[in-house]
């Protein structure tokens, strides 16, 4: 870098600029004071979800689901109008607390809803606990959120990592697999998933012979496929999602492993990725708390409504967003929209029985859904329900002192 030559600038000019920027910031700071509506009658809902980056599609689906329920309820929850405050969290944990503060401190929302990425959700939980803001998680599965971090004001309408993987344990054992190899990214969600699977699978009598991990978000799987082929386990359990999931399934198929070693995974492997997998994805068995081809009336109504509103088929993320709104509606109706009656509101939410498109569910003591887990089979672009493998499965909420 020989051509590199810093510009020498006079200090005065810099100060001019700093002053301008600072003044601009000061003006911005004063704006919200002028705008602040004194309890205008609307309930302020803060949506903090990823709208840019890798998880943008998920963030949009959650948002759509949430808004769909509110629309169906005439734009009101608990009899009061809704005002949305939206923040793009970029799936960046480094900005998680700051972005949450935008909603909690700047916009002073009544309810905080978010997010997809577990690391970001951890940051949100921190702020929500400190400010005692009502917080509903519509996706992030980190066990901690309804474990050690559980709190009266934190709810989840999606799943815990433990739930979606634990249910797969007995399934794999019943398919006469005794020796299993697991593979996932080396990060918290991956570890929680494979640990929960191993827990259930070994309880059933099987053995996890090797736990393999690769650095997140690396997608070069070939060395692991070679190892799997050499180890010749009875089955393979993986946790991947998004682009990495699509690539893994294709690589697994192309390596010829699908023919000899069955592949099992939590449903995130095949949600939103079947089209990208093409033939390689067909017939995959996964476990999740939602599936295509459910027969309950609620699901059919939900699907019709979603298709009409957004010209697209809903996915599990949309369901979770929809149910987040439902759960809030239950609580808010009980207090007639008066969010200041927090104790009653929380009590009503805890006692709620949510008529979800996934099938009705209740909440555990730690505020995580107690829900049925489906075994699904990939057919075409759908994850068709095969059976309910775990009826009303509750997360053990380890470390929760509530």
């Amino acid at each position, binding site marked *: 870098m020989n051509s590199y030559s*810093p*510009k020498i600038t006079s200090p005065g000019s*810099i100060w001019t600029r700093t*002053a301008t*920027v600072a003044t601009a910031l*000061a003006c911005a*700071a004063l704006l919200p004071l002028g705008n602040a509506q004194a309890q205008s009658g609307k309930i302020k809902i803060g949506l903090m979800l990823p709208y840019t980056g890798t998880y943008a599609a998920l963030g949009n689906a959650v948002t759509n689901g949430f808004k769909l329920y509110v629309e169906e309820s005439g734009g009101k929850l608990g009899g009061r109008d809704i005002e949305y405050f939206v923040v793009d969290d970029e799936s960046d944990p480094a900005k998680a607390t700051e972005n949450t*503060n935008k909603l909690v401190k700047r916009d002073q929302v009544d309810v905080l809803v978010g997010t997809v990425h577990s690391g970001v959700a951890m940051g949100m939980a921190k702020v929500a606990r400190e400010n005692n803001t009502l917080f509903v998680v519509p996706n992030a599965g980190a066990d901690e959120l309804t474990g050690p971090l559980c709190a009266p004001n934190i709810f989840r309408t999606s799943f815990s990592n433990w739930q979606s993987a634990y249910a797969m344990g007995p399934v794999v054992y019943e398919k006469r697999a005794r020796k299993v190899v697991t593979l996932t990214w*080396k990060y918290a969600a991956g570890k929680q998933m494979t640990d929960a699977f191993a827990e259930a699978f070994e309880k059933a009598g099987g053995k996890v012979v090797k736990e393999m991990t690769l*650095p997140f978000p690396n997608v070069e799987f070939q060395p692991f496929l070679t190892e799997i082929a050499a180890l010749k386990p009875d089955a393979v359990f993986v946790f991947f999602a998004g682009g990495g999931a699509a690539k893994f399934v294709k690589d697994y198929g192309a390596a010829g492993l699908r023919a000899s070693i069955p592949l099992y995974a939590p449903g995130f492997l095949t949600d939103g990725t079947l089209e990208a997998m093409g033939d390689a994805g067909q017939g995959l068995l996964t476990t999740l708390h939602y599936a295509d081809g459910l027969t309950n009336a609620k699901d059919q109504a939900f699907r019709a409504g979603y298709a009409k509103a957004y010209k697209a088929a809903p996915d599990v993320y949309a369901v979770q967003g929809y149910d987040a709104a439902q759960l809030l509606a239950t609580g808010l109706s009980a207090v007639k929209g008066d969010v200041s009656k927090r104790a009653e509101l929380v009590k009503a939410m805890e006692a709620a029985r949510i008529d979800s498109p996934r099938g009705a569910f209740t909440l555990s003591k730690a505020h995580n859904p107690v829900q049925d887990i489906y075994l699904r089979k990939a057919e075409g672009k759908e994850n068709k329900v095969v059976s309910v493998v775990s009826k009303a499965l509750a997360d053990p909420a380890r470390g929760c002192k509530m």
Partner: protein
Amino acid sequence: MSASFNTFLKLLVLALVLAFPFVGSAFYTELVAKGLILAIFAMSLDLLVGVTGLVSFGHAAYFGVAAYVLALLTPKYQAANLWLSLPVAVLVAGLVALLVGFFVLRTRGIYFIMVTLAFAQMAYYIFHDTDLGGGSDGIYVNFKPSAAIAGWTPFDLDQPKALYFFILVCALAVYGGLRRLKESSFGSILQGIRDNESRMLAMGYATYRYKLAAFAVAGALAGVAGYLYGALYGFVTPEYLSWHQSGNVLLMVILGGMGNFGGAVAGAFAFVAMQEFFAAWTKHWQLLMGAVIVGAVLFLPGGISALPARLKRKPRESADE
């Protein structure tokens, strides 16, 4: 620009940041505090990039390491002592920088950029892949550091205003210290190295030693920023060490204008302000952000701090650049 006008502007900026917590809302006070912390971070990098001519693409490592030191020194149910944890965090960040610098300063130019990145990525994976600091989901700092000295507490960092002013004092101290350092013998050596290292060698300067010292000092100051960031937000994640953060702080320095710490401060605030305004405006805010950055490079060479000087020139001159 006359000297008195310059002083007047400095005082005006100082008055603004001093008065801010009393007129701004809690959120914006915190945002300005964040700006001040990033300003410290950017100034520390400017010591390398602008003053010494060393472009580090791994500066977030020292920021993140110090934040982790705070997180690890904070017991689960009580606060860490400020007067112990801050120096330790800064010292550790400085020592890590010293160790990394020992290796990376053997390379030059683009190779230097990439080796600094390599070491930062290694630090990132150490915190992301091991349980050392809570793994990939991050770790909480449940309590803000306590400023107690033998039972006497001069100020309480749990009070947002106290924390704000503590950060402000740190930022001013770093600014003043770096300005002074730049004008010292040591500072003039660093600038000599930036402009012509072989000449410095020929004049008898063991430049490696000076660069190493600058690298360690910059790492330690980045540690000040990282520590304060961890204290302000109470949440430390491996992303603090990621190359995105290293890239962002480099952008702040380039955007503001290099070699003069005021430029780094302006760059940091401009960066924060841009993110804030654009994100509030539209879902596709990164498009605007990108376009503004592209525009800034094409029409604003030398960064924000070179703007007034450019405006004074004839328009034709700047148009054909």
